[in-house]
C-alpha cells in the first residue's frame, strides 16, 4: 500500500528528526512548571496543576506537530523530492492522504504521551476523553499545516498561517461574545463588524469546544456534546483534506 508507506515515512522522519526528544522535553517542562505553580497555590493545588499542565501540553503538542509537518513538507518541496514522487505511478490523492495519515498518526502518539501525566491529577475517564479529543485536534492541525505547507511557498508563511488559523479558531467564541456584548453600540459599522466576525466563525472549526480543561477539573462532558464536538472536528478534517487535495491535483510540480 503506497499510502501506508508514505505514512510510515512521515513517522520515521519524525523519529529521526528528534521529535521524540522535543516531546520528552515538553513533558518534563510542563510537569515542572505545573509543580512550581501548584506550590504557590493556597487552594486548589491539584486543579492548578492539572489545568496548567494540560494547557501547556496542549499548546506544545500543537506547535510541535505543526512545525514537524511544515518542516517536513517544505523540505520535500525545496529538495525537489516531491517532483520525484509525483512522477511515480501512484495517484495524487493517495500521496496526499498517505502523508496526512502519517502526520495524524504522529498526532495520536503525541496525544497519548501528553495525556499520561494528567492521570496523576485527574480521574481516568475525563483524562481519556481529553486525550482522545487532543488526538482529533492534532489530526486537524496536521491537516491544516499540510494544507498551508503545500499551498504557501515559504516555510515561515506556512507556519504563521497554521498558528494564526489555530489561535483564531480557539478564540472565535470569545470574539463573538465581545462583538455582541451589551455595551456595544448600534452603529452600522459595528453591525457590519459583528456580522463579519460571525461569518469568519462559520469558516473555522470550534476548537474552543474540544480538549477542554474543564473536563479534567469538573468531570467528563455529556456524551452527546462530546460526540458532536468530535464529529465537527472530523468534518473539518475532511474539509481541509478536500481543499488540500484540490490544490494538490492542480499542482504542476
Amino acid at each position, binding site marked *: 500500500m503506497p499510502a501506508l508507506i508514505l505514512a510510515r515515512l512521515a513517522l520515521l522522519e519524525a523519529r529521526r528528526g528528534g521529535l521524540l526528544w522535543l516531546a520528552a522535553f515538553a513533558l518534563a517542562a510542563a510537569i515542572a512548571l505545573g509543580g512550581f505553580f501548584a506550590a504557590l497555590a*493556597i*487552594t486548589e493545588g*491539584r*486543579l492548578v496543576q492539572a*489545568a496548567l499542565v494540560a494547557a501547556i501540553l496542549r499548546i506544545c503538542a500543537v506547535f510541535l506537530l505543526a512545525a514537524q509537518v511544515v518542516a517536513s513538507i517544505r523540505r520535500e518541496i525545496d529538495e525537489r523530492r516531491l517532483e520525484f514522487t509525483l512522477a511515480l505511478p501512484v495517484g495524487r490523492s493517495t500521496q496526499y492522504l498517505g502523508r496526512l495519515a502519517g502526520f495524524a498518526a504522529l498526532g495520536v502518539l503525541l496525544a497519548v504521551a501528553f495525556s499520561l501525566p494528567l492521570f496523576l491529577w485527574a480521574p481516568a475517564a475525563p483524562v481519556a476523553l481529553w486525550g482522545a479529543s487532543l488526538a482529533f485536534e492534532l489530526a486537524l492541525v496536521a491537516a491544516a499545516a499540510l494544507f498551508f505547507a503545500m499551498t504557501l511557498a515559504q516555510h515561515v508563511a506556512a507556519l504563521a498561517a497554521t498558528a494564526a488559523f489555530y489561535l483564531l479558531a480557539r478564540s472565535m467564541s470569545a470574539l463573538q461574545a465581545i462583538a455582541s456584548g451589551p455595551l456595544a453600540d448600534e452603529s452600522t459599522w459595528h453591525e457590519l463588524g459583528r456580522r463579519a466576525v460571525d461569518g469568519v466563525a462559520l469558516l473555522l472549526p470550534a476548537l474552543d469546544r474540544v480538549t477542554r480543561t474543564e473536563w479534567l477539573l469538573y468531570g467528563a462532558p455529556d456524551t452527546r456534546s462530546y460526540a458532536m464536538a468530535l464529529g465537527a472536528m472530523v468534518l473539518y478534517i475532511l474539509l481541509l483534506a478536500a481543499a488540500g487535495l484540490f490544490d494538490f491535483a492542480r499542482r504542476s510540480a
Partner: protein
Amino acid sequence: MRDERPLSDVPAWLWLVLGAALAAQIAVRALQAPLALGSADLPPAPSSAALRLASFGEPEAMARLAMLYLQAFDYGGTNPSPYRELNYAHLVDWLRALLELDPRSEYPLFAAARVYAEVPDPVKSRMVLEFVYREFLADPDRRWPALAHAALLAKHRLHDLPLARRYAAAIQRYARSPAVPLWARQMEVFILEDMNELEAARIVLGGMLASGAIDDPAEARFLRRELEALEHRLAR
C-alpha cells in the same frame, strides 16, 4: 548528528569573547534585584471578556494563573503587612473578573475571604466581605465556605454582629445542599454563641475537614497554618 570540527579549531579570541559575554551577562543579572510587585503596581482589572480572549480557549487555566499573579502583588518576603496597601477597588474587580472566567473555581472567593479580607483595615476588609456575600448568592451550595469565614471575620475582627448575622442568615437560607454541614446550616446560632475567635475557627476548620469540604492538601495546609497563627496571636 551534524558533522563538526574539533573544539581546537575554534579561534582563541572567540573563546575569550564568548566567556566574557557570558560572565558579563551573569554579572549584570546578579546585580539586578528581582522585581517585586508592589501595591501601586496592581493595574485596573481587565474585563472577563478580554481575559477570555487572551486565554485562547483555556479560561480555567487562565483563571488560576491570574490568581497566582494577583496574589504576588504587595507580598514581598519582608513585607510586614501584606496586601494592606493594595487598591482594593482594583483588587475586587480582578477577583470578580476571574470568578466570571471560571465560576466553578473556589480560588477567588477563598483568597478573598481568607487572605484579602484579613487585612487590618476595616474599610478594605468590608469591601471584600461584601464581594464574597454578593458572589455567594450566585452559587450558595458551592460558595458557602467563603461566606462562613466572612461571618466569623465580621464578628471577631470587625466586631459587627449585625453584619455577621446577615451573612450567617444567608448561609442558612440559601445553602441547601446535603453536603453543607449542620453547623453551617445553623450558622446564625453558631455566630450568636459566646465563644472566642479561636474556638470558632477550630470548630469551622474541624467541621470542614470532617465533612470533606476541604480535600485539597494545599488548602488544608494553608488553613492549619492560619489556625496556628491565630493561636499565637491570641496567646500573646
